[in-house]
């Protein structure tokens, strides 16, 4: 089933700091919800392993992330594809980072996804809510990372 969502967050760091953080696998592993593993396998390619719980079902998900059309520190495209016990997922997102002045930057995203298997069949009713919740969790962790990296 198709999913699409978008949003915008303001973060109290400069665009370059933000950019560096969101392409750093070590930081991503800390801030991506349920992330068990995140490692770079190429210049802009990562392998990611997640353990997630969606509605009544929980399980693992392993996928590849690729970044392209990169214009540091302003914008890039991201694709994700993978599968696991939760089902399959593919998605793409375009991310734009803008300088908001005062050492702040904003990050806007527009994402389209297509999920299948258990997560689609059983979790369908709550899937959008879960996606929003996970996104919020991601940004909360990311912000913490900047204010207090040791606790994030």
């Amino acid at each position: 089933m198709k999913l699409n969502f978008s949003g915008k967050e303001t973060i109290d760091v400069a665009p370059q700091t933000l950019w560096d953080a969101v392409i750093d696998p070590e930081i991503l592993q800390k801030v991506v919800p349920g992330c068990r593993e995140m490692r770079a396998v190429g210049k802009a390619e990562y392998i990611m392993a997640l353990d997630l719980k969606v509605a009544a079902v929980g399980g693992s998900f392993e996928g590849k992330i690729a970044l392209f059309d990169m214009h540091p520190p302003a914008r890039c495209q991201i694709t994700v594809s993978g599968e696991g016990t939760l089902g399959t997922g593919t998605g793409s997102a375009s991310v734009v980072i803008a300088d908001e002045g005062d050492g702040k930057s904003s990050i806007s995203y527009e994402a389209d996804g297509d999920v299948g298997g258990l997560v689609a069949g059983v979790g369908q009713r709550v899937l959008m809510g879960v996606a929003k919740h996970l996104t919020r969790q991601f940004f909360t962790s990311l912000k913490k990372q900047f204010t207090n990296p040791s606790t994030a």
Partner: protein
Amino acid sequence: MVHDMGSKPMRDKKYRFLSQPRRVVEDRRFVAGKGKYIADYDRADMAHVALMPCHLPAARIDAIDASAALDMLGVIDVVTGAELVAAIDPLMNGLDTPKVRRYPLAVGQVRYAGEWVCAVIAESRAIAEDAIEHIRLETTALPYVLDPEQALRDDSPLVHPDHNSNVLLDKKFVWGPVDDDFAAADHQLNFCVTWGRNSTVPIETFGVVAEWNAWEQMLDIRASVQMPKYADQIAHALGLAGNQVRVHYDIDVGGSYGVKRGIKHAVLIGYLARKLHRPVRLIEDRLENMRAGDAHGPERKFDVSVAFDKDGTVRSMKMRALDNAGAYAGRAPFQLGKPIGAIVGPYRIGSVAYQAISVTTNKAAQEAVRGFGQAPTNYALETAMDRVSAFLDMDRLALRQHNFIKTDEFPYLIPSGSTYDSGDYHTVIDKVMAAAEYPKLVATCNQLRKDGMMAGIGIATCLEPSGGNSSFEPLLNERNQTTTWMESCQINIDALGTVTARIHTTSSGQGHETLVSTVIGEILGIDPDSIRVVRPNSLESLPGNSPVGSRMAIMLGGAAARAAEKLKAKIIAIAAHHLQCDATRIDYQGGAMLSANGRHITWDDIIESAHRQIHQLPDGMDPGLASFDIMQVPTGGDLPKDGKVHMYPCYSFEFHLVLVAFDPIIGKPEIRSYTIGHDCGTVINPAIVSGMTYGGIAHGIGAALLEEFAYDESGQLMTQSFLDYLMPSSHEVPDIQLVKYCTPSPHTVFGQKGSGESGYLGAPAAISSAINHAVAGLDISFDKLPIRMSVISDKIAAATHHRSDSG
């Protein structure tokens, strides 16, 4: 036909045990929780299986890496489709489509979301499930098609590229002067209705245990199954001799109504048991069952034209039925064939053109469901009757009564070649109208409307072709020459005088032990409760075709009766020999034999003679008291000619009358009144027939309002658990008034007809009729089942909004 009970005239009632309100033998163990189901069958060293699905609707399998799973403690093996294809033959396919191959696991290509790509065998099911997480599946997504009309187009992705088409079957039949009748008729109308993909969804999922004994070279199979020629099909796929596969029938099946076919499962598990030299068990979990258990029913689109006169006479019908078979062939396409045996329903429609198309798509494979395609066709036929009534502004029931075959017209030959045996449709209608107090029902409906509710009365009449012949096979596939669909029974009276009958099938709640003991008890004149009915394994069995096609009262009941008659004749011959009189003068009564001159011989003496005293038997008579019967389907046996064939010996009739009401904003239909008139000829056990009918109506309510295996546009099954696949509960199923009537069949031993599909065959049409009656004033209609609450409320909202805009 009334069975001759003996030389004396019938006393106070026709039958002593038959048709009497007797307890169902099987219910004792089921109600006490002592049924013996497949999950109760245990073996100390049993291995367990879990199945890994691929979640894409169509994909090429590039690689399967199971090394990490195989390293896990407790994992025994991981088997893929590539391994199977080298070791076994494809599953049997009734159609002439050799390139549409099916194996238990996907081979090279995945054809629907959820299809099994590998099987993990482990020391426990839990370990097997955990191991699946460690298998790496690499696939490349392929284009897919879900809609059957799109699947017909030249530019559609092909589900089986080797087959070079998505069409499994496309047969056109013209029975009678269709064009002339259309030209001569006063009017014609066209419409399209769609039957959603629903099924029976038993609480017990499918399960199978296989054991291979290398020293005996024997594969033992126990399964929760309802499948004709199961052992043969397993042997065929595994390359074993027929007598190397032993299917044990003494397993209780926790519900089926058609779908427990379990052939791919048994072939897979049989293969594993042989390979691993261990007992292997697979019991589907709900997700495996719903997504990939081969357990979805027909999904069918009908384009119908009817030609009729001003007075309501329906002259002719053209029907195009397009069925979405899903990813593989199986027996699903034949579900377009059974309805040919009752293509005009209970009506005197003089000619019919019928096009049956079955296509593959990237949805789960379809299997047989209760009625084998008859319920969807009945829904289309009954919709036609309602539409014609509306067009002519004629009462819906009056139109039906006008077109009914009359009771003095039986036997009645329909255009497609079947001859209906008997019926009295008008009387059943009258009895139901009286029982339901029709004028009161109309008043209640009107009052509900006054009170602001939407309310409608639904009616549906239909036939249940029964006797389970399989003539649709040669009709739809010329290379298939099947003309018999026999059933068998064996009876033995032991040296202590007790009776044991053997039947050669599993039962999934149809009460076959009750059926057989009642029939034999009736004929031998002994208490059915003293008769034991056992189920040997397939190697100890006579040929049979399992309880499909609403056939067992007719066929198993028939074989049991005929075997009992043979025994009775032998007992009478022994008695006549003892009493030195002619056999015709023996007055047979269970327990004692009386001759005309007042002398008698007891049952015990007969047993003693048969078992120990051959010198007391007539010359040339074999010792013992045993008999068997292998019964051919009455009236069956002919191959099709000119696209016509006689299909079923018996035609049961039902008439549904319902009142449905709903709030126009909420749109949740509530059934306020439900009466069904049911004529299945002579009833053998009333509790079983009533249970079938109530259950069938509940099932039909599901099909009409709730149940659907719904796929989204990405080919994902959205209803793969009971969170989303909704089934009627006691909240949705109302009290049902059952009006029984009996028009005996001339073709069966006691006049019995089938009732295994009753209720389900007409309930969806009746409920659709009621909802459409309720909204008729808004100039809207619902033409797809299930009619969901949300669809009702949205469509009413749109219609009333449109009215207020334009008003």
